[in-house]
């Protein structure tokens, strides 16, 4: 049995401390070992029910949370926006209160509006786990990215990590930047200024003047998806130009360390933010990230829920 962390919810990286992050990553390591066994299941959360409530499309994250819960022997139910009563005019608070009335241990929520997990945490008793809120945070993605980096380098401290692309709309970047800088990495961000949030330094990053600058000597290059669904008018001129000036290609990778990892939270727009060769290169750990996602989410779920009173 793993010892609990002091939180009931996982809302954002902003509420975690460095040693809590280390504890989550250490716990994930032991779960990853379990995932390599023929029987990939432990009884940690037997009797717990976890509801995945996704108001935005998701394949990877939803499946990853579901598998993580199942491998911990929890029961899982997934609800998506198109089948929820929100379409009938129910408020999000009522929806979640009704779900809570069926006594789940946790609700994993993805929502297009920033801050929704915080809103829900104020109104319900069960654990709220943020699976991505608007353009704000995506804490489990940051944790799985950190896990993947740590697996390769044995640490985060002292690494140079470049996050490239649509920083403004990327909750992955916002959570990642916070986490990596908290763990002692040197994080630089780069992208068209129109896709940069105001005062990005408050997330613990430095802003690079050019892509070459950002990638120069980097240990990790994290490319972000151009979020077609969140683009307002006139943020970038064209995907073609974006690919040419901000896309991660083998030319760009030449500036990084030879051992540098290429990461992407997926789904990739191949040929836009990353060239196909780069995405499929030896340095790419994109699929490892996905594998690690299950172990990291098992760690998060077990640390938040194991020993909670709702457990049978």
């Amino acid at each position, binding site marked *: 049995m793993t010892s609990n962390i002091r939180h009931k919810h996982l809302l954002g990286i902003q509420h975690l401390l460095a040693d809590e992050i280390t504890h989550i990553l250490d716990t994930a390591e032991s779960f990853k070992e379990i995932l390599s066994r023929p029987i990939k299941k432990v009884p940690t959360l037997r009797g717990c029910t976890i509801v995945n409530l996704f108001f935005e499309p998701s394949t990877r994250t939803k499946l990853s949370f579901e598998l993580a819960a199942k491998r911990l022997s929890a029961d899982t139910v997934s609800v998506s926006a198109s089948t929820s009563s929100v379409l009938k005019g129910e408020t999000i*608070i009522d929806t979640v209160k009704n779900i809570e009335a069926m006594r789940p241990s946790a609700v994993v929520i993805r929502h297009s*509006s*920033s801050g929704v997990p915080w*809103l829900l945490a104020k109104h319900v008793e069960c654990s709220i786990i943020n699976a991505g809120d*608007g*353009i704000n945070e995506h804490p489990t993605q940051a944790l799985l990215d950190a896990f993947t980096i740590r697996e390769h380098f044995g640490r985060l401290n002292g690494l140079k990590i470049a996050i490239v692309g649509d920083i403004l709309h990327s909750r992955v970047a916002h959570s990642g930047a916070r986490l990596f800088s908290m763990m002692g990495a040197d994080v630089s961000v780069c992208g068209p200024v129109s896709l940069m*949030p105001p*005062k990005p330094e*408050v*997330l613990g990053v430095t802003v690079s003047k050019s892509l070459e600058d950002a990638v120069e000597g980097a240990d990790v290059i994290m490319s972000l998806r151009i979020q077609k669904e969140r683009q307002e008018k006139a943020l970038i001129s064209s995907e073609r130009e974006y690919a040419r000036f901000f896309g991660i290609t083998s030319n760009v990778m030449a500036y990084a360390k030879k051992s540098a990892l290429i990461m992407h939270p997926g789904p990739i727009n191949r040929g836009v933010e990353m060239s196909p060769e780069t995405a499929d290169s030896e340095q790419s750990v994109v699929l490892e990230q996905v594998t690690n996602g299950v172990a990291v989410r098992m760690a998060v779920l077990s640390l938040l829920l194991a020993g909670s009173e709702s457990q049978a």
Partner: protein
Amino acid sequence: MRFLLKNARLLDPGNKTDIEGWLLVEDMNIALVGTSQEGHPDVSGVEVHDLQGCWIMPGLVDMHVHLREPGQEYKETIETGTRAAAAGGFTSIACMPNTNPCNDNAAVTNFIISKATEAGYARVYPVAAITKGQKGRELTEFGELLAVGAVAFSDDGVPVADASVMRHALEYASSFNALIITHAEEPSLATGSMNEGVVSTLLGLKGIPNACEDIAVFRDTCLAELTGARLHIAHVSTKGAVEIIRLAKRRGVHVTAETAPHYFTLTEEAVTGYNTFAKMNPPLRTEEDRIAIIEGLKDGTLDAIATDHAPHSVLEKEKEFEAAANGIIGLETALPLSIELVRQGYLTPLELAFKMSYNPSHILGIGGGMLKKGMPADLCIIDPNVTFTFKKGDLFSKSYNSPWLGQKLKGRAVMTIKKGCFTHKKSG
């Protein structure tokens, strides 16, 4: 009705005097005013209130209130809104046209006035829409609206986007010597839900930059200069807007401006935790802006303090931050928050009487704002030192969307007198 208010500090913007004295009310009017040294007339048989050093100001005037009636009576009615006004020390308020139906015609203006007269707690001066349905296209009937009691024109939260329509509105208004009030915002830049800056990045929320307000303030002051019309800028929130207005005034443009207590009291930090009670438009800005607003009040760039009292229910506020409605109530907090400016040495009590009574009444042209013999006895009696906890259950407004809920405030209206009648009396 005859009564004497004695042992008071009389703050009279009309005479620019701040004296210890007394004030006698007779037949709904101010009958006599005198200093402590001058004996008051024989008051045998007359009700005497010993104010023990409390301030008497002319009744406060709030030139920016949302009364919600007709259409959204579950948030506020003319009765509850004016009752809240009286509790806050206000005797006159101007109400914005964004009701449902919108106040863009004489029938709605008449309705508001008759409802307010019936309630009797405060004088209500409707601000009618500039354009029909606040749609920014056709002008409303300014002449007729003025004739039935409208005191100014504003499209309020839906600013006139088309500069040529705004120009024509200003020109047409000037033929009636009417006032145009602008909610200065460039709509295409107002797509966020809070101030754009450090906190919006930390909360992952889209921001509204200061430029959104500055551009619109500049546009509208240029148009006021072009047309010679009278323009009033509502709820100034940015350092840039203060500077633009300062320069326009220096050039002789007929422009006046107000700010609201939240802009000189709070900053964007108040939004932390996705607090929808700190969500308003314009949004709470930075400390630099807050200081500039206070400077603007001090040097006269900002003429008035208005509340932008915007009642909303839990239906609009207890929801996703981005989807929550803008605005907070203000009538019952404006005075304590503004007295804080006096306590901190930014304004004198007399200057505060200008900002909260004389100036707004003169901008609106509704008279009052003075402690002058023969004028209607619209008075606000203030205990600047009393502390109280601002609680939901004590509010007269129907809504409680306020960032100060549960907090200790200092200074309040202990009595409000409209036309010689008490509209509010704080017991104890």
